[in-house]
């Protein structure tokens, strides 16, 4: 036989065997793709932010479709609209999404705290933190370089007077900033709250006082004044338990340094409410 024809036949036969084996395998070992999962996935925004607690939108869709996850309101960026769509696909009742906003637990602007060095290293909070805890004299507070600002998908974070601020109207509550901040001063809270502790300093009162006139000194006044017993001082820092907080604002009234503030943190979804006034971050109790 002609060697060329033989070679062509040989390769063709090998290819044919491979394709037949693959075709049989794909039929025999087919894994049924869940139709519900695909439909649910189409409803989700596809930002893969991980706010729902799963690795991405695919993970959340898979968990919902398999019945592992029963809550349809976990997609915080998607808000009520997505929750309704998902609930519609799954045939369950839609639950209201508790929208979350990011809060910066630091108000150590340049007029209330001092720098301890002239930091000229890599422009990243992560790197600055490694270098003697950053340039500010308070090592717990905002490092002021803006890693959170860079990671925010909505450009909702801006730097002003050396600290980060969150624009509540733009924040979608994805929590990427909270994961990025090396000092962990950003947390996600339900946007129904009215009070927040704007300090992250765990040092004793006298030490805190020295580095920042705005810091929490752990004086316990708020604890004593809270009618709901929602505040506790944990290692020299007041912490509000939002499951108990009644938004009365008494803590903010008695706070000596003004580090507990009362404001409205409603986010993007509730701005059509005419009664809601936006907090004015820049002017917040700077005189303290």
């Amino acid at each position: 036989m002609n060697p060329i024809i033989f070679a062509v036949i040989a390769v063709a036969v090998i290819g044919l065997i491979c394709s037949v084996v693959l075709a049989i395998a794909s039929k025999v070992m087919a894994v049924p793709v869940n139709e519900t999962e695909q439909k649910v996935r189409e409803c989700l925004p596809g930002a893969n932010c991980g706010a729902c607690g799963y690795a991405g939108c695919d993970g959340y869709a898979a968990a919902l479709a398999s019945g592992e996850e029963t809550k349809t309101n976990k997609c915080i960026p998607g808000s009520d609209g997505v929750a309704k769509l998902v609930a519609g696909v799954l045939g369950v009742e839609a639950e209201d999404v508790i929208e979350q906003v990011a809060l910066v637990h630091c108000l150590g602007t340049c007029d209330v705290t001092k720098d301890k060095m002239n930091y000229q290293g890599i422009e990243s909070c992560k790197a600055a933190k490694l270098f003697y805890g950053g340039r500010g004299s308070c090592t717990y507070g905002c490092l002021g370089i803006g890693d959170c600002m860079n990671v925010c998908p909505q450009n909702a974070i801006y730097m002003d007077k050396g600290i980060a601020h969150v624009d509540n109207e733009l924040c979608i509550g994805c929590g990427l900033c909270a994961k990025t901040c090396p000092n962990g001063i950003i947390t996600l809270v339900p946007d129904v709250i009215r009070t927040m502790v704007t300090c992250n300093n765990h040092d004793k009162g006298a030490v805190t006082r020295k580095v920042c006139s705005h810091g929490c000194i752990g004086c316990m006044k708020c604890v004593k004044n809270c009618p709901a017993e929602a505040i506790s001082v944990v290692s020299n820092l007041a912490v509000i338990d939002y499951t108990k907080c009644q938004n009365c604002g008494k803590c903010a009234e008695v706070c000596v340094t003004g580090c507990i503030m009362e404001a409205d943190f409603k986010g993007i979804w509730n701005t059509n409410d005419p009664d809601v006034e936006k907090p004015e971050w820049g002017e917040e109790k700077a005189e303290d």
Partner: protein
Amino acid sequence: MSFKALVVIVMAGILVNNYTLRQFLGICPFLGVSKELKNATGMSIAVIFVMLLATAVTWPIQMFLLVPNNLGYLQTVVFILVIAALVQLVEIALKKFMPPLYNALGVFLPLITTNCAVLAVTIANIDSGYTFVESLFNALGSGLGFFLAMVLFSGVRGHIEASDPPESFKGLPITLVAAAILSLSFFGFNGVVENLFA
């Protein structure tokens, strides 16, 4: 075929003939997937797995099908065909029978279907005149070498991320420079393995 010979083959695959850093094969995953240690190890384990499988399949094909029929020149074509089909088959089988393993390796398997490092191992086995067992050990060593390169480089890249190179070096250029220096260091292993038991 002694135990010593097999050790020499494995060590040569890891250090002296390191596919990524000495022979510059499989650079695509080396640069693409080495950003994080977790992905780098997942990819490397998939490569070891596929290299072993590919060797186990292509060596008999070469010896019992191509050579007796004087079709040695079809080696490259047939090997690519067989390896691609094999990896697809493994992927389907993993998806069905071992979902956890599929979740760990699944994303990487299609990437290495036609990877040149995998093909190079199978061809090198034939060219070096290895027996079947020696071929398998060579595949293992080469895979481990890839693993070593990936793990080392993911560490290097972690440091590059935290550094501040000049604007024109940011991104891929500085990565390539780092890869070149890492590669240079592997040239220091010249002649080490041959005299391992001397």
